[in-house]
């Protein structure tokens, strides 16, 4: 039981992060109709920024805020400057530009902050003693903190989507950009906002995720995270924020349980599992659990 609970807690923490990033991917997908390949690298860049500030003895809370704001700016500017002029041309061109951004951000991290792996200080008490006992299992405060913060972010997003005028405008734009523009919505502003919020969520996820494992802040940290988040977003349905969050949580738990109870998979095949999951979802139910089926008018 204790072993199971330990794993479950870890799984929920990972799952919460996947859920946040999947939500970010869904927001971009709803705005622009593409997957933002640079999502993970944007998060990595802002995480490095936050880490850089912590080494200057800035409080971690402040670093988180700076990262979120920087993420917002990065996302909004990328949309306006890189994506919008090119997305009319073709999906392929958009994807290639995003791939270029991916490459630039990753390389910039290495040039600014060096290649070695770093440990990121946590927002929450993060020593070996800072846990509460649940049925013999250790539930660390760091885990609880991640859960609560991600829950707060997700809750805020849903309140924004469903309870505000701005959210209504965002949903209208996602649904039909031209009609939204005709109804007087400033579509360009909404798109920038969508990308900005998305990157800000990614930034928060990065700052929360990195301290969970020591020495994990490195140039390759976000590839697997992006793959997992993409798998979750696909599984939940690319245009369904609720589906993405649920699928992210499930995927996080499934990943930890699989490597704990199926020894053949061990600790090494995790990206391969995500790969198989993606292919399986696309083959069996391409619209995902809660997504809407793509209907094309000919």
């Amino acid at each position, binding site marked *: 039981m204790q072993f199971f609970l330990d794993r479950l807690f870890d799984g929920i923490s990972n799952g919460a992060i996947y859920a946040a990033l999947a939500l970010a991917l869904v927001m971009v997908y709803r705005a622009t109709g593409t997957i933002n390949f640079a999502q993970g690298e944007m998060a990595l860049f802002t995480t490095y920024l936050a880490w850089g500030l912590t080494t200057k003895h800035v409080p971690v809370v402040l670093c988180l805020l700076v990262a979120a704001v920087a993420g917002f700016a990065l996302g909004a500017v990328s949309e306006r400057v*890189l994506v919008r002029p090119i997305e009319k041309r073709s999906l392929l061109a958009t994807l290639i*530009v995003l791939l*270029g951004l991916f490459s630039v*951000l990753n390389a910039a991290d*290495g040039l600014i902050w060096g290649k070695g792996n770093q440990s990121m200080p946590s927002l929450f008490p993060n020593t070996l003693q800072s846990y509460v006992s649940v049925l013999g299992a250790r539930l660390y405060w760091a885990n609880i903190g991640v859960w609560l913060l991600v829950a707060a972010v997700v809750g805020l997003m849903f309140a924004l989507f469903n309870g505000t005028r701005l959210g209504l405008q965002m949903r209208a734009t996602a649904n039909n950009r031209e009609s939204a523009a005709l109804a007087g919505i400033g579509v360009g502003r909404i798109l920038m906002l969508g990308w900005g919020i998305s990157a800000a969520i990614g930034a928060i996820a990065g700052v929360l995720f990195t301290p969970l494992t020591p020495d994990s802040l490195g140039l390759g940290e976000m590839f697997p995270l992006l*793959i997992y988040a*993409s798998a979750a977003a696909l599984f939940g349905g690319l245009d369904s924020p609720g589906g993405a969050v649920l699928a992210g949580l499930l995927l996080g738990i499934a990943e930890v349980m699989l490597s704990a109870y199926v020894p053949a998979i061990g600790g090494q095949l995790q990206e391969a599992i995500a790969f198989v999951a*993606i*292919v399986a979802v696309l083959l069996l139910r391409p619209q995902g659990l809660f997504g809407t089926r*793509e209907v094309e008018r000919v």
Partner: protein
Amino acid sequence: MTPALPLLVRERSAAHRGLQTAGIVLLAVLAVYASTMNSFRLGQLTVALLYATAIAGLNLATGYTGQLSIGHSAFFGLGAYTTGILVASHNWNPLVTLIPAAVLCFATGLLVGLPSLRIRGINLALVTLALGVAFPELIDRFSGLTGGQIGLNVSVFQLLPPHWTGISIANRFQYYYWLAAGLLAIVLVLCATLTRSRAGLAMRATRDRETAAAAMGVNLAWTKMVVFGLSGAITGVAGCIFAIYLGSLSADASFTLTLSITLITGLVIGGVSTTLGPVIGGLAVYFVPYWTENVRQGEASELIFGVILIVLMFVMPEGLMGLIIRLSRRILRIEPQPPARPGRPDAAGPAPSGAGPTTVIHHDEERNTA
């Protein structure tokens, strides 16, 4: 149209054939001239030509059929490891391993292309991204077979030029260079033939107007899957020669996502959907970082690639080869043959000749380069 300058040459006329022959002779002379360089340069050139071959494979899927692949590093690696394992553990003749490697990569390509049939575009890109990330991990996992993180080493003596070539051990880089150059030539001819055929027309129609293509009778599922398989096989075979040349393989060093991005960058620099673009692109992505590495160490080449990718997509999406073609059209223009061909009634049937779908398709193919 000014009467003087765009010289008009009819397609398949004697003048056109002459120009083509001249171009091929020029390339052959360049290849022979390059082979006289020292071993170090020859080794560099070998890798650059292999990149060019891999990019030519990628071009079939991404350029002509519009399926972005961020996972071609996995095909390159799969080919390389197939050769490495068969030679090191089973003592195969290195050149014979190209056959099982091509088959394996083709099959993998079909599998990866499978999900793209249901829905298109980003999903395939996502699958290939996952493949590219998962490949080094799979190599580490099956370390019994692949050597894992330690790497896979093949003895140099198993990779020496065979006797019939008459190349001595000291000059073995000549052999690797000619292997790479020969493979590239074969692949380029294959790609040029394929993309100018009816199948090539189907590929481009699939890329540009999927619905219209299907309405014209193109089997989208079949086209996409087979092209992706073929694309993977070509890139995989380039990986085989890479293994023969290098002799020691490490997935974490050679076959990561960075390689995929390098290949895509090369494709965009050289010119998407052009026959010779991959050659320019392969040379560029190999030698540009090599020269700039002296300026600034480390991540510089990745940064440069990223910037080049973005800037090119904005200012010159047709790439260098596209630019060359566009400029050369001002001087020389190849007129297509009139479509009607008396004596071959079958060609006049449902063949999409003349006005029909060909007007939909962008005429992005260079017809006026040899």
